[in-house]
């Protein structure tokens, strides 16, 4: 039954072959249950689209806000649900484990449909946003300071063609080191599509940023080792 309904859902979206569409329409109109379900798909669509239109001014406001910071970020927002930026605030690091504060996680997915997400984004420190966007745009380290080789995760080695890039064959990682911490007291990481940005405040007052398609499970030991080195 689920398969029939899944097909009905695809029919509603016009995502079947021409032949399947024709057959699906005939089947649907002769089956009261399918017809009622199809009708409800329409009601749900109407509700969501109407609600989305009502919320449009807030989304526009965010776009306007971000466009002032960086047009690339604005374009990301324009892509609405394409934006998969996840801002996850980590617990203050302790020596035990790499913990994620699920309660304070923020997702900007789903067409930025959550008011809470929008507000949190607006409240996010602009310096952090600008820094994050710089990192995303530059796609490589451009700091003059040397990145300690001790920070490189196990299994990663420097790319001979790009001394700022480290790779384990599957994932790539860039480092960026800044003298200021941008007010960051805890490790934070952001997810943008398949890439992650780790903002790691160092004990000496600098901020280490690691950027690449390296998930937290891989980055975890790297961050642990940085913090364990007193």
């Amino acid at each position, binding site marked *: 039954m*689920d398969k029939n*309904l*899944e097909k009905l*859902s*695809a*029919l*509603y*979206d*016009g*995502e*079947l072959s*021409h032949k399947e*569409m*024709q057959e699906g*329409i*005939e089947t*649907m*109109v*002769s089956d009261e249950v399918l*017809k009622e*379900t*199809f*009708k*409800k*798909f*329409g*009601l*749900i*669509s*109407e*509700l*969501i*689209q*109407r*609600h*989305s239109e009502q919320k449009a001014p807030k989304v526009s406001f965010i776009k306007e806000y971000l466009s002032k910071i960086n047009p690339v970020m604005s374009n990301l927002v324009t*892509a*609405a*649900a*394409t934006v*998969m930026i996840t801002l996850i605030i980590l617990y203050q690091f302790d020596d035990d484990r790499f913990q994620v504060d699920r309660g304070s996680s923020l*997702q900007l*997915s*789903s*067409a930025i*449909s*959550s008011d809470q997400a929008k507000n949190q984004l607006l409240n996010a420190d602009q310096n952090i946003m600008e820094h994050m966007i710089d990192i995303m745009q530059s796609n490589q380290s451009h700091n003059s300071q040397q990145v300690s080789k001790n920070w490189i995760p196990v299994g990663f080695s420097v790319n001979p063609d790009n001394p700022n890039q480290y790779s384990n064959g599957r994932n790539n990682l860039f480092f960026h080191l800044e003298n200021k911490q941008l007010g960051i007291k805890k490790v934070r990481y952001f997810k943008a599509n*398949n890439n992650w940005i780790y903002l790691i405040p160092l004990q000496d007052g600098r901020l280490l940023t690691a950027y690449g398609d390296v998930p937290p499970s891989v980055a975890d030991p790297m961050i642990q080792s940085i913090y364990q080195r007193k």
Partner: protein
Amino acid sequence: MGVSKGDEVFINAIKAGNAAAFEAMVLKYQPKLMSSLIGYTKSPDQAEELCQKTFIKVWQKIDSFRGDSALFTWIYRIGINLAKNDFASSFSKSSKITDSLDQNEHDVPQYLSPETELIAKESENKIIDFIQTLDADTKTAFTLREIDGRTYDEIAQILKCPIGTVRSRIFRARQLILEFMDQENILNG
């Protein structure tokens, strides 16, 4: 924006006189049209009547649809023009509707019930809140479809997953919303 692949099937079938395709098209677009007409007329009864007239006219005029806009845009224009004429005719006894409607020519099927329902305001927030609780993958695929109007192929590229996964996620979202509506007794009378 032109005609989507799905609407093209509806249009060609309706042009060929396929009543089932017409019925499916009405089921799909009636809620959006009703919502627009209620917004315009501020009267559910009047919107209901205009909705019926609109779909009759769609059936009559489908051959003149050139496909240079989305199907719903065309339907919407017909509906709003009828509403404007209706409004004008309330000030004048002579009807301003340029194309007379022969309502006997094609009956709009019974699924356009007199009490055509949209999801009530009080239920609306419940559903929107529920959608926020969907897991991120499901919600993202669903909103890319419903709000951004992306095709499955585009969504698959954005989310870097197979089209079949996109199809399943969108269906899953709808299925969960329907189950929630059942639990909450929304639209169950």
